[in-house]
């Protein structure tokens, strides 16, 4: 029963008393000594039945592992999220001399370059789109429409 309580404490990561810490050190020491002793033995594969029995014993002794409790971590995580949101809000609101990168504009530049290139490949006029210009010349109608097609 005492072992079970000790195991529970280790599992929950609760603070150990000085006596318990000494006991843990002793146990760990014993483990390393045993490991050294075992290394000296000839290698032999343990049987599956023996391994199964060992697993059952361990389960009986420790019970089902509990999910880790967030405990003190929850308030600090919430504070972190709040700080990030505040920083993002401040960044978006701050006045800057050059606007933040504009993904719409980026794709428009690439599309523009590509379209212009194609237009110049096939046409005499290229991408020189006529501007909507009202003519002042009195005889302009002799040459064509007074207003060119807008785009």
């Amino acid at each position, binding site marked *: 029963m005492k072992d079970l309580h000790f195991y529970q404490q280790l599992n929950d990561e609760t603070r150990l008393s000085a006596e318990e810490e000494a006991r843990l050190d002793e146990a760990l020491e014993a483990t390393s000594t045993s490991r050294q002793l075992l290394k000296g033995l000839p290698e032999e594969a343990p049987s599956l039945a023996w391994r199964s029995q060992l697993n059952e014993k361990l389960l009986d002794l420790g019970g089902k592992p509990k999910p880790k409790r967030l405990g003190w971590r929850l308030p600090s995580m919430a504070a972190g999220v709040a700080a990030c949101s505040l920083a993002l809000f401040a960044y978006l609101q701050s006045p800057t*001399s*050059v*606007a*933040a*990168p*504009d*993904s*719409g*504009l*980026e*794709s*428009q*530049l*690439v599309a*523009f*370059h*590509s*379209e*212009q*290139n*194609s*237009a*110049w*490949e*096939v*046409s*005499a*006029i*290229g*991408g*020189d*789109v*006529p*501007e909507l*210009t009202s*003519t002042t*010349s009195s005889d*302009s109608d002799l*040459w*064509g*429409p*007074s*207003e*060119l*097609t807008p*785009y």
Partner: protein
Amino acid sequence: MRRPKPQNDLALERLPSAVKLMWKSFGQLTYRGQRVVEFSLNGERHRNVEMILVQNQRARYEFDKGSSWEGHIIVEDGRSRIHFDPAKNEIERGPKHRDEVIARLRGMLSNPRTRVTQSAGGTVAGRETQLVQATEGQGNVLTKLWIDSATGLLLKRELFDRVGTRTAFFEFTRINFRPTIDPSEFEIRRAGAKVVSPVDRLKKVAQKEGLPAYHLPPTSGAELINIRPIKHRVPALAQMYQFKGKRLSLFVLKGDVNEKRIGGLAGRDAHVHRWTTGGVTLVLMGDPSPKELEVLSSQVRLAR
């Protein structure tokens, strides 16, 4: 001892016969014809009917009724390109266009990554053609060319985007290889018309958009061929240049853009260089290498 041929010349030698005939005949043919042209700009589809007259290095283009550029006249006199805009009553003189297009096509077809095939193309404007198809490494079609089997004239061309959509094309509907020509057809004389340069127009458009008129001066080797404002929330202006047989855009923007994102969107089609100066963002995008773009960026000046 003979010097080995450059890679590009070797690639040109391997091209199909119709392409070789096209190179050979370029600048040697005389014809008058009509062609339908379609392309997209700002998501809008434009369709023109162009009336073309070509005599060797010289060319004249007019636009039929109902075309987006109805009334405009363009003449290439072998040295430069002269464009008459009837609405503004302006004559603009800029660099030659035809040579540049053929140089770019040459670059695409001679690229070792481009696969070029030839097959029978049927008739275009009543003429027998050879269909030449250029595909990139993965097998996606870049362009299709219908070349007149007898003369080498490019009678039809289609361009495709990355997903195989036809983005632009032209197709001759009439062609006459024995036209009657008056020498005055390769001149533009219009009393009262204002003669402007592309830089004059740039300054005017930049002022209207409230942007500084940054440009690549002729000393950089780049020739300005087009200027347009971009319709967006922030003021933006685009210029297109010819540079050593390559093409590039210079963008002047009030807003900022992410260079990596633009590079990602452009993919292998173009290189990108972005920097800021005088409160605006400048972007160079196009065929030149990243190093060339960087060198060009140092030559960008305010137009005077």
